[in-house]
């Protein structure tokens, strides 16, 4: 088991570097002269200044040297954004509270809602409730989050004044914090609820046909016991593991669209900014952060999975 975990970690570390390298190379291509000196110097800089910066920061060194230096900076906490001059770590840290609030809140909401909807749809499969829930799920996955966000902001926010129009408030002010997050939570959740509830419904319907469910009924267990202890217990396992992975992606800046439309200046938003400003260093850091989050949460999920399903432990 330990070897398994170690191997996986090594693979993911290798991937971390691969991703950062790819990002680095892509941006080298995109930047004028292949280096960010012009960016750092600012718009009104003259060629002499640009050259000075190039030499000072070592942008004229071979690419692999630059790459190593950048990675060293990132890990050492001394990487500075090409665009804003701020320390990248500090910027990411500043964005984390918003993103984590968004991710965790939405994560809990969408998981619980999906379990509710999925189970309901499965129990009433083929009947009215199921059809309605299926339609809702379908719409949920067909709607771009920023469109839904815009609708919420316009009708609930602008017209009815029910929600704030944008921004993130620190948790030190709990009421405001909550109020500002409700709409983003709902927006981010809609998509996931659509997907997860259908997966759960499908898994439950498959599980119901399993032989061990038949055995459970034959043992004389009540309907509730069969549902909870056998059907749900077995059906939830795949959902939970998916949830871990998705949560990791959102924390690592995957919810760009939602953060943008609500002006939540989280990690996702930062990532988006760094792309449009060709800020290689920041983007690399964020990308590696995402991959790290995916690794960690993925590993945690796998361990949890093994805990839930003993057949896996043997591997």
């Amino acid at each position, binding site marked *: 088991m330990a070897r398994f975990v170690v191997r996986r970690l090594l693979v993911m570390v290798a991937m971390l570097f691969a991703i950062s390298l790819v990002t680095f190379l892509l941006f080298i291509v995109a930047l004028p002269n292949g280096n960010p000196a012009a960016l750092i110097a600012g718009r009104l800089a003259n060629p002499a200044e640009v050259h000075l910066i190039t030499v000072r920061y070592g942008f004229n060194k071979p690419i692999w040297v630059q790459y190593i230096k950048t990675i060293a900076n990132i890990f050492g906490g001394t990487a500075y954004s090409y665009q804003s001059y701020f320390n990248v770590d500090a910027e990411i840290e500043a964005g984390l509270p918003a993103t984590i609030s968004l991710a965790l809140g939405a994560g809990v909401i969408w998981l619980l809602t999906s379990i509710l909807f999925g189970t309901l749809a499965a129990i009433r499969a083929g009947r009215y409730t199921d059809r309605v829930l299926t339609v809702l799920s379908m719409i949920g996955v067909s709607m771009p989050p920023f469109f839904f966000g815009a609708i919420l902001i316009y009708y609930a926010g602008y017209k009815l004044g029910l929600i704030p129009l944008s921004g993130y408030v620190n948790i030190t002010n709990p009421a405001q914090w909550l109020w500002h997050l409700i709409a983003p939570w709902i927006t981010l959740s809609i998509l996931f609820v659509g997907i997860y509830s259908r997966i759960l419904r499908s898994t439950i319907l498959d599980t119901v046909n*399993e*032989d*061990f469910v*038949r*055995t*459970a*009924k*034959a*043992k*004389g*267990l*009540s*309907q509730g*016991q069969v549902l909870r*202890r*056998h059907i749900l*217990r*077995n059906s939830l*396992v795949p959902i939970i593991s998916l949830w871990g992975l998705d949560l990791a992606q959102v924390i690592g800046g995957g919810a760009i669209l939602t953060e943008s439309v609500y002006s939540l200046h989280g990690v996702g938003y930062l990532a988006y900014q760094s792309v449009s400003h060709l800020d290689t260093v920041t983007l690399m850091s964020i990308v590696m952060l995402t991959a790290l989050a995916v690794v960690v949460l993925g590993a945690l999920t796998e361990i949890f999975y093994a805990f*839930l*399903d*003993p*057949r896996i432990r*043997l591997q």
Partner: protein
Amino acid sequence: MSAAAPLLQVDDLRVSFATEDGLVRAVDGVSFSVAAGEVVAIVGESGSGKSVTAMTLMGLTRGHNARIEGRARLGDTELLSASEHELQRIRGASIAMIFQDPMSSLNPVYRIGDQIVEQIRAHERGISKSAAMERAVELMERVGIPRSSERLRSYPHEFSGGMRQRVMIAMALSCSPKLLIADEPTTALDVTIQAQILEELRTLREQTGAGIILVTHDLAVVADIADRVIVMYSGRVVEEGTIDELFYDPLHPYTWGLLGSITRIDRDRSQRLPAISGLPPSLLNTPKGCHFRPRCPHAFGRCTDDPQLIARVPDNAEHLDRCWLELDRKRALRVVGDQIGLVSPETVVS
């Protein structure tokens, strides 16, 4: 067999399912009884309705697209119309069932001990967890699982097929059922393990006096353990009798086919096994008249009328069959070469 009131009495059981393509008549008027301490085998091929019959007794086929009619009395409880609540009390306690594939019949994420205890505690509310665990250990020992107190903590996938089936039997016995239904209990197992499982069932019957319904397609299993046999085809009973009657005086062509297609040591190996020609019948559009007519080489004019299941042997009211042929014709036609079998028209033996 009718000295005491039977343990289970089934009368005219009919089960149909409404599917997209029409009504599937899985069980079409089945009646039989089981006495305490008796082993009744229900034999038939896939689609004959034998499993549906067994599962209906437990109420496992109820659903909004299922139509269940008839009567099935266990003691003084009418099973078919019992409420879900009543059925829960009966399942696992008065009637227990073991299924075909022990691999998939046990929940893979719970330990064996927990699964046995779950059943015990569902029926004996007051019992403590540790007392239930002790019972589980005893049960496992009883069915021949070694080191049972250790193995309590094992998961299903850590057992072999035979052991898993023993676990299923242990679970089934946990609340001392009066009736045990075994649905193809040995089909998924090796032949050697098969013998062991059947031995368990035999012991069980002797020790507890429970009645056993054994659903199978394997006549060898029947020969080993059954007292009486019911042969089903296309949702109906086509022959019913004691084991001797069935093996030595079978009276329905389908039964001849089943017997004839067994590989036997004493048969001349150069002879081809007479097989039952044709395909299993569609339960959707059942043929008019005798359901076996399309595949029966001895069909004649009368067969377009539905034959009744009645006793046709004088002085034997217990041996029933559903075939229009005269008794003497039957006894003559069923012999192929020097064995019992079902002849197909192309291989008429003089």
